[in-house]
């Protein structure tokens, strides 16, 4: 399969808003979704690669990447009116129902590949964990979170960039 090219002009930089992380979970019989990163100025997926390096007798290094443990922090993650995920995490927090933190699906949408006609490239990670790190702040209540990607990945694309997107796996 050929590598999909970026939908950007030569030398055009991809705006940060073209990389989206969306959390999905079920609430009873309803599937809920929320875009992560509202009021967040800077957030990256950190791959936390575990490497091992050996050096042969000629001094040449051989590095293996054994695994990655992708993680994305969102700080601030403000308590905002209308945020269903915020309300869910706050409910889990007050019940200390920690096992419920690991029932999320995360979509990483790279909207700089694809377009509104053919859809945008996305990866779906199931059984992910979203953890709250603290609660408090100064002027506004902040509950910074960390999203841990499971690496149980299905590659595919989403048809649009809105809450009711349809994810279609690659064939």
């Amino acid at each position, binding site marked *: 399969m050929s590598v999909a090219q970026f939908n950007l002009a030569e030398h055009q930089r991809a705006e*940060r*808003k073209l990389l*989206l992380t969306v959390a999905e979970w079920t609430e009873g019989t309803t599937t809920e979704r929320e*875009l992560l*990163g509202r009021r*967040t*100025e*800077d957030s990256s997926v950190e791959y936390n690669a575990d490497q091992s390096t050996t050096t042969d007798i000629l001094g040449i290094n051989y590095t293996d990447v054994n695994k990655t443990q992708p993680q994305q922090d969102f700080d601030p993650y403000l308590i905002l009116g209308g945020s269903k995920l915020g309300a869910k995490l706050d409910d889990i927090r007050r019940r200390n129902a920690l096992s419920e933190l690991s029932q999320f699906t995360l979509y990483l949408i790279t909207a700089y590949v694809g377009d509104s006609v053919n859809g945008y490239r996305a990866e779906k990670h199931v059984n992910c964990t979203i953890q709250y790190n603290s609660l408090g702040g100064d002027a506004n209540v902040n509950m910074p979170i960390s999203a841990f990607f499971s690496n149980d990945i299905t590659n595919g694309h989403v048809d649009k960039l809105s809450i009711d997107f349809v994810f279609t796996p690659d064939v």
Partner: protein
Amino acid sequence: MATVDLNKSILDYIYECPVVAKDPMYFGVAEEKDNNNQLLVNREQPRDAIEFIDGTVERVYRAEILMYKSVAYNPIVIEEDSAGKVSPSPLYPNENIEDMVDGQTLIDWIKEQNENRHFPNFGNECIIESVETTSNRPTFNGVNVSLESPLAQFSVGLVITYLDTSKQLWK
């Protein structure tokens, strides 16, 4: 989508305040005359546009409402008499003190609107977060003595913080 004229929205908004509505209001340039008011839009400051990773931008609209008031050269107290008694001026309450009242009323009105989340209409693509004044008291900027009737100038700084969602991809 039609672009919203923010200046007009601000004027419509502050005109809801009775002390503003009772006097002539000018935009930008004003005739220095007793009881005239003037809205001046200030330039943006470096941190007045904060971009978030979801493509929204927190912006700040800064303006100043100038109020022109005639002044009096009457003392608050009259000098002590031969018996050493100090008395309030017969002209008390003093016009210069009353001149501050309109500005203070406007500040209190803005505070109340902010608490009630009654904001100017910036259109569907802007979410107003707060409307605040830069101080709790009107600022006395000085007296223009070059006029036939000297005029005092008071100002109330206005800061409107809003979230611009027009460039957001996620709908």
